[in-house]
């Protein structure tokens, strides 16, 4: 294979930190290369150098054999490299066509130019199998469709090498599968692709070759066919990482019971006729394709939304109308779906987030005044007990990595010995080491008798942690199945809503 892209001996230092250390990487024509590494391994820095956002201290970048001038953002684009960012850079109030034209052509151009642009866009759309409606507004599109527009935008600028930064971070699994099929088709049209990821299963499923970065160094390159997820995990983390295994044990009495709960949003049902029970010492897994009511279920169990009918009881107490504070008082620990939006206030110190849920408890305040010393020593305890790295009680929370922020949130709700724990997508976006730590904490809470409801889009995770599993489809829940009976096929059928027919037969 002829290399279309060569990164040669790239080194980049920020002060004392070496973000990229002598990294060499090539991409062949028509190849899909996965760039694998944990958060902070230097993947993004490397791509920023390729794109001229940073100037490398040492090393060269060659595209189609020609060396790129360093530190010139337009050079890479002109040489035919396109980037699809993890966080989309689309203007929501403009149409698909306008967004595609934005930056390369004037939006005030005459309508003939617009018609030409539209024609070109449709040709690209046909050729690469990426259907779009040019006149649709971005704000009306789903996340998957927006990503398609991002890709089209790069192709419209004649990109022949496409780099995708964590392309599946925002996608549900079927969408992700569709994306990878599309990418495979695109290579047949002569494109070469790099996708950045830290998810082993998608690297295994979608790439031809894998390059593993760790601590800024290129530690290994493998043909995907010659490696295994286990080997890649070890290469990526630098040691053997084993996710903890759930031990069988007796489960106790029901702690949290939902009976025929209905939740509405703007008059539309988000949860309908939902009944389940989580028992002492049990993890109940809720699986489903994203957007099927997980958000409403998370909101209900956090106390943010109130059921319009049905009952939600926690240890015999009706907690439906209590709100978040009432849920916490009743003994619920809650891990929200989005740790940045709901889990923690990034601008506050770690200690402030550690006590945010219980500021008014006598442990942390007296006569309306915050007992800072007590709060900080509690935060220090959490940091030690939950192994929150890079943190002191006074560190600003947004400076923590995703995994450590998640450990802080988990620590905050587990340290009080909750009766019930809501874990909503607890490992989303985390790297292998952090995932193992979060799993271990959840299993430890289970061993101590907490009733845990796990909402997850990662099937492996749900099967590994849960005692029983229910699927959520269009706001309704399937009957529970024991985790040892749940294989991928059965869960797939459940998530597709097929359980409705064999409910009674089972």
């Amino acid at each position, binding site marked *: 294979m002829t290399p279309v892209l060569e990164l040669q001996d790239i080194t980049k230092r920020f002060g004392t930190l070496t973000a990229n250390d002598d990294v060499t990487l090539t991409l062949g024509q028509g190849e899909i290369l996965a760039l694998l590494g944990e958060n902070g391994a230097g993947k993004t820095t490397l791509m920023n150098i390729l794109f001229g*956002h940073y100037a490398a201290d040492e090393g060269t970048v060659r595209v189609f054999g020609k060396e790129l001038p360093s530190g010139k953002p337009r050079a890479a684009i002109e040489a035919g490299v396109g980037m699809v960012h993890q966080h989309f850079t689309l203007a929501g109030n403009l149409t698909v066509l306008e967004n595609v034209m934005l930056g390369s052509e004037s939006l005030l151009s005459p309508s003939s130019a617009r018609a030409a642009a539209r024609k070109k866009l449709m040709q690209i759309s046909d050729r690469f199998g990426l259907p779009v409606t040019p006149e649709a507004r971005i704000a009306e599109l789903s996340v998957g469709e927006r990503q398609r527009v991002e890709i089209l935008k790069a192709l419209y600028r004649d990109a022949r090498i496409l780099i995708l930064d964590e392309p599946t971070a925002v996608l549900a699994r079927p969408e992700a599968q569709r994306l990878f099929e599309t990418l495979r088709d695109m290579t047949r049209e002569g494109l070469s692709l790099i996708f950045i990821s830290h998810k082993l299963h998608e690297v295994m499923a979608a790439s031809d070759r894998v390059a593993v970065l760790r601590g800024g160094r290129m530690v290994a390159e493998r043909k995907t066919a010659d490696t295994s997820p286990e080997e890649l995990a070890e290469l990526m983390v630098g040691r053997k990482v084993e996710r903890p295994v759930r031990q069988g044990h007796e489960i106790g009495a029901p702690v949290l019971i939902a009976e025929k709960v209905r939740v509405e949003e703007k008059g539309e049902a988000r949860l309908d006729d939902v009944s389940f029970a989580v028992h002492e010492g049990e993890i109940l897994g809720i699986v489903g394709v994203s957007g099927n009511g997980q958000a409403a279920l998370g909101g209900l169990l*956090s*106390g*943010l939304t109130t059921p319009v009918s049905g009952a939600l009881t926690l240890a015999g107490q009706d907690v439906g109308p209590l*709100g*978040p*504070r009432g*849920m*916490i008082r009743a003994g619920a620990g*809650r891990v*929200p779906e989005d740790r940045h*939006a*709901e*889990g*923690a*206030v*990034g*601008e*506050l110190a770690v200690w*402030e987030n550690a006590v*945010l*849920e219980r*500021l*008014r408890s006598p442990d942390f*305040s007296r006569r*309306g*005044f*915050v007992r*800072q010393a007590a709060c900080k020593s509690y935060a220090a305890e959490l940091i030690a007990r939950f192994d929150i790295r890079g943190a002191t009680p006074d560190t*600003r929370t947004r*400076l923590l990595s995703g995994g450590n922020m998640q450990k802080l949130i988990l620590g905050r709700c587990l340290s009080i010995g909750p009766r019930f724990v809501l874990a909503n997508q607890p490992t989303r976006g985390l790297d292998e080491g952090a995932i193992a730590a979060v799993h271990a904490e959840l299993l430890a809470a289970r061993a101590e008798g907490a009733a845990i409801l796990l909402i997850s889009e990662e099937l492996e995770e749900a099967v590994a942690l849960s005692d029983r599993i229910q699927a959520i489809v269009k706001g309704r829940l399937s009957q529970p199945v024991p985790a040892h009976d749940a294989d991928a096929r059965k869960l797939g059928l459940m998530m597709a809503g097929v359980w409705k027919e064999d409910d009674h037969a089972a």
Partner: protein
Amino acid sequence: MRLERRAHVPLYLVVVAPLAAVAVALILAGALIAAAGVSPATAYAEMLRGALGSRLSVTEMLTRATPLILTGLAAAVAFRARLWNIGGEGQFFVGALVTAWVGHSLALPGPVGIPVLMALGMASGALLLAGPAYLRLRFSVDEVVTTLLLNFIVILFVGLMIEGPLRDPLAFGWPSSVPVDGDFRLPDLVARTRLHIGFLVAIVAAGAVWLILARTVFGAETRAAGLNASAAAFAGISLPRTLMGVALLSGALAGLAGSVEVLGVTAGVTTTMSPGFGYAGIVVAMLAALHPAGVVAAAIFVATVFVGADAMSRATGVPSFIADVIVALCLLTMLVALLFTTYRVRR
């Protein structure tokens, strides 16, 4: 070139940013002064002499700073919680009106009556902001609009009252309300000047606000709600209660400013008693980066500009409106400076 968020803001930057903003604003205003045919150096020297050149001018400047500290605190408290209270002017006048009205005929000894009148001024300011806060919580009505428009309503109402029921018959036709009883006039802080103990009230208020924001549960909840409302709500903090608490505190501070101005300086209410204290409070709060201690310093600076500009105008003939220009430029340069304290420029 692009902006990158700073991992943490070094302390020196917090101090340097407002100073740099003020310096740039003075340079820009200097160009206007030069265009008016006067050397900026001369003009600024006259300004400094006018505000700080003598015992009398210093006390005059601090007298002017007193209401600015309080309206600055009112804006800072509200803005921290993302409650955009633009109604400081109206709350100031309501506090002033209620104080003069009740203070004219209140039958209490001075030392008891003064705190009572201040409390009434605070309560009336708080109530005036409670309305817009309620409308925002209940119907999502934009408080920028409601608080701003209430200013005009309140000032017109004050005009109505001093032309009618509260008219001072002894004011020889000047549109002024009846004065507060002489027992309730605030004692002088410096003999034979206009500086009154209201200045100390303002300093104490700044300390109290700092204590509330930095050390109480209410302050911590307010901060969390202001920085990330959904995370605060998730953690069980009641956003409506927090917002209403902030509104009451903010309105009370602006109301206190009006009350203190009546008790300490004007005795009666006139529609011209405030040269925009409420609006200038917004500038003060921004210059202070919403910090209570900074509010005191920023209020003294703005008062220096206002008092100094009058003197400069008399000495050099440059219109004293230059004070408004300087203060407005300071707001703009400070907003830019705040950007550079939060972000750094990377290339």
